[in-house]
Each structure stands twice: as C-alpha cells, then as structure tokens.
C-alpha cells in the first residue's frame, strides 16, 4: 500500500520534471515575446508590462502574413505529395511481392542517412535546372527528400499488417485493384497516414536550410527563414521580443494540428482498425 503510494508520487514527480523540461522553452518564448527592448535581460517570470505591440510589429515590418501563407502552402503540398506517393509505394512494397522488394525498401531508408548539407548543392542545381528556384513548388519538391522515406516506411509497415484475407475478400467481392487500395487498404492504414502526414507537415513547417537556399525574395520566404531574418533598427540591436512573438505565432498551428490529429491516431488504433 505504502509502496504503491510512493511509486505513484515518484511517477508524478518524474512526469512533472519531464513536462517542466519540455515546456520551459515554450513558456520562456511566450514570456519573452511580451517584453520590450532592454527588459529582456532582466529575469522576469511574468512580464509586468506586457508589450503586445511585439505581435503587431511582426506583421508590420515584413510580409509575415504572406510568409505564413507560404509555409502553409509548402507544408500542405509536401504532405499531399508525400502521402499520395507513399500510399502507392506502401501498397507495392507492403502487399505485392516482387523481386528486389527488400532492397528497394532498404534504399528508401538509406536516403535518410545523408545529412541535408550534403545534398544541398546538388539539390540546388536540380531545383534551378527545373526552373523552380525561388518557387514554393520547388521547395515542396525538395522537402520530399526527407519526408518520403519516412512516410513510405510508415505506410508500408501499416499496409503489411492488414491480413491478406481482407484484401482477398475484397477482390472476390468484385473490387478492382484500385478499389481495394482506395476503399479497403487506405482506410485501414489511416492511423499510419495521419501520423506520417503530421510529421511530414511539422518537418516541412520547420525546415530552414533548403528554405533559405532555394528562395530569394521576401515574398517567397517561409516562416523559419522570415523569423531568422527579422532585424532591428540598427545592426547592433536584435529584436528578441518580436522574434519571440513570431515564434509563438507559428507554433500555434502545429500545436493545434497535433492536438486534433493525435486524438484521431489514438482512436484509430483503439478501434482495432488493423485487427482482422
């Protein structure tokens, strides 16, 4: 009895410490976003004089609304392309047996081993060659490099878990192959699609290096680059307040997405979607 209670207290303490560790930076960002100028360097756990103008300034000094729209477009495009390609690839790699399947899956995974900087120059040439420099579509295309291996892997794994008999039943019930994929397999692997799509979205939303390299104008920039390029009145002043305000703004959609879809993932799994 006593030991159970001790264990429980320990659990809460551990969870509390973990939460504090992960949430502190967010809290700090929120607090700093409401401080102006020099107040930043005095340690305050709650701003006495909240500087709300940081938030409006973000939109006034640069086309931040446009940048957010760009990020939404790029991330959505990335997720859409990734999932469409991963659905097809996942079906082929997970449910069709052909020679070289394992090798292909291994190659798909191996592409994640290359660090982004290593492919930067080559990717730049590709993007320019395709005439997609300073273009949101080019950015989305380049993001497939890191989203696809993961999405393909996840969708393939989920596809594999669908019992062969379910696919056979659909074929016998008169469904043409595309219909088997669309009406039976994709709904059953939806938790996988949602998880992979969510992570692809977050990856695309936060990506900095490609976004910096493959865009030129303010109007084509995505949020992470725009935030990094926020500058103060003089060379010597870094407008922390505004940078933090911008960061908080762009974090909110991600938090909302995760909250909405996490419940879907959980219910999808709990409903035993895969169980035959």
């Amino acid at each position: 009895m006593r030991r159970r209670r001790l264990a429980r207290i320990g659990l809460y303490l551990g969870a509390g410490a973990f939460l504090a560790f992960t949430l502190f930076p967010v809290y700090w960002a929120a607090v700093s976003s409401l401080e102006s100028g020099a107040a930043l360097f005095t340690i305050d756990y709650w701003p006495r004089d909240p500087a709300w103008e940081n938030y409006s300034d973000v939109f006034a000094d640069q086309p931040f609304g446009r940048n957010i729209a760009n990020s939404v477009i790029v991330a959505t495009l990335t997720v859409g392309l990734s999932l469409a390609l991963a659905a097809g690839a996942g079906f082929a790699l997970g449910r069709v047996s052909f020679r070289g399947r394992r090798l292909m899956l291994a190659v798909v995974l191996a592409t994640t081993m290359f660090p982004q900087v290593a492919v930067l120059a080559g990717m730049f040439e590709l993007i320019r060659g395709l005439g997609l420099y300073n273009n949101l579509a080019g950015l989305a295309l380049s993001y497939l490099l890191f989203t696809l291996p993961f999405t393909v892997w996840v969708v393939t794994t989920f596809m594999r878990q669908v019992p062969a008999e379910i696919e056979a039943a659909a074929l016998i019930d008169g469904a043409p192959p595309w219909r088997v994929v669309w009406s039976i397999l994709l709904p059953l692997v939806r938790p996988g699609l949602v998880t992979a799509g969510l992570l692809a979205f977050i990856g695309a939303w936060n990506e900095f290096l490609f976004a910096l390299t493959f865009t030129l104008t303010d109007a084509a920039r995505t949020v992470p680059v725009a935030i990094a390029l926020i500058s103060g009145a003089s060379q010597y002043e870094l407008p922390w307040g505004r940078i933090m305000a911008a960061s908080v703004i762009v974090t909110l959609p991600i938090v909302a997405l995760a909250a909405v879809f996490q419940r879907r993932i959980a219910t999808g799994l709990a409903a035993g979607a895969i169980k035959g």
Partner: protein
Amino acid sequence: MAAITLEGVSKRYGPVIALDEIDIAIPDRALTVVVGPSGCGKSTLLKVIAGLEEADSGQVAIGGERIDHLPPARRNVAMVFQAYALYPHMTAAENMAFPLRMAGLGRAAIATQVRAVAETLRIADLLDRKPAALSGGQQQRVAIGRALVRDPAATLLDEPLSNLDAQLRADMRAEIAGLQKQLGATMVLVTHDQIEAMTLAERIVVLNHGRVAQTGGPLDLYHRPANRFVAGFIGAPQMNFLDCRITALGADGIAVALAGDLTLTIPADPGAARVGVAATLGIRPEHLALGETSDPSLVCAVTRVERLGASAHITVDSAAGPLRVAIAGEPSLKEGESLALGLAPARCHLFDADGIALASRTL
C-alpha cells in the same frame, strides 16, 4: 448456381506441390465438403477456384464455362474465410453491401437485399455494428451474409467453423446445412475435421498431399474406403490396422494370416493380389466384438478402458498387436482382464502393400 469442374489442376509453391493433377466435379446445388489433414492443399484448391491463385496447369470451369483466365471479380464466386476477413472499418451492413456496391447496384436495391439476407441469418439487429463489436459467431454470420447476398454461382467456405467453440460450431454447422438447402446454393466447404465432413456433406472429397484420395458420399467413404489413408482418416476412433500375409486366393475371398496364428478368409476380390505378399488388414473399432463370438477370434488383454457414457473405448493387447475396440453402453471391464476378440471377416478391409483397398464384396 452451377457445377464446378476441375481438370488436371496442379499448383506448386517452389518445391512444394500443393495440388497435384486434381480432377473433381462439384455438383450443382449441393454441399460438397473437401476434407484432409493440415497442409494437404485445401485452401489452395479454393483459392484456385476463386482466382486468388493461378493454377500452373489444368482447367477450372463453372457451369461448363472455363473461368481460369478470369480475375476473381468476374468469376461470380463468393468466399468465406477462416478468420472471417470482415472489413474492420465498415459496419455489418456496409460489409454485406460491399459486393453489391461493386456490382453497381442502386442504393435502394442494396438496402433491400442486405436486409433480406440479414433476416435469413438472424443478424438484422446487428447491422449497425462494426466487426470489433460482434462475437465470433455473429462475425461468422455476417461473413456468410456477405457471401450469399449477391447470389453467387458458388460459395466457397474455408474452415468457416474452426474459430468457434464446440457448441456454437455444432449450431452453425446445422445452420449452414439448412441455409444451403433453403437457398439451393452450390457450396464447397473446407475442413480438416472429418466429423464435420461426415455430418455436413452430401459429397466428400478427401485430399491428401495435394491429390484426391477419394470422392463419395459419407457412408461410401466409411464403408468402402478406397485406400488406407481414407480408411484411417474417416471414422473415429480410427480404424485398426494389422499386418498380414496373403496365404490363398479362393472363390470365397482372400485368405490372410495374422500374427498369433489367426487365419481369416475375407470376402474380397483378389484382383492383382498374389499369394505370399504382405498386406494390411483394417477393421473399425466398432466392428470388433469383445467376448465370446462365433467369428474367428484372438485372445487379448484389456490395457485401458475409457468410458464415455453412451459408449466406451477399450484398448487391448493381442498377439496380432494392440487394437482399439468401441462398444455401446458401460462395460464392466477391468484393466488386465483377458478376453476373446472376434474379427468378423465381412467387416474387414484389406489393403495391398501400396495401401490400395482390395475391393470388398460385402461392404
């Protein structure tokens, strides 16, 4: 509804020969049971008929039309799987509607047909539930409903009862048989349980190692097994087999000598049998007589008595080897007791060295 015929159908998986030159004719509007031990190719046979697997050679026809080049969707064959294979994300109604939707039926027609089948199967009140919220027996009904709803040329059932408990299995067995009669459907049911085969079938196909061991009605197989495999597979408890030697071929049958100085003259056609060759004598436990008999007999000692109430299984040791005896009622036998065991020659089966039955004249 149509008869299914397979001619020379073979299928290999790498080195494994799953089906070996199968020739069978499955009658129209009847329940045919395919039975055989695990791995003998039963599921493969159904998959070849349904079009899920392509045969390496041979022909499959339904109602006289070859279908082996058609995709599963165009064969008009329905299938019920061992694990039911219901679509987990659809309700029972949606599951049963799926084949009709694929056939392009209208919404109203689908609804009426699904409801009619659901009522026949007594699952009308479960239509809105997803498979996860159904019991095994209910899932089984939905799976059968999904197969029957589109009135297929034939319905294939792959071990449909093996996931159910004993009581439910007996109920569903009766129900499937009833449904088949009521609808006049052509059904092929696969099982590894010979009792299920005997109770359900109008016709049984016994498979062994990818070959047809014998085809026939339940009692044909019981009384006239074509070979030692069928003799041992059909009937419980299993037939006793004793080594013997052919000593004479006469007008009244084949004389064989067993260990323990017993000679029997079995009323069977000698056919290709020759004097002096080894053979196997088979006799069912229920055909052995324990105690004083007028039949040729062996002296035996009781080694084990299993009382089942209505009947008892007794294991005895004799000079010809151990034997199992089944008798009705509750015998007052003790282990170690010594008795006479009568072998009625007319009840004996004789198999040659290759396990092929020598035709009996009386059975």
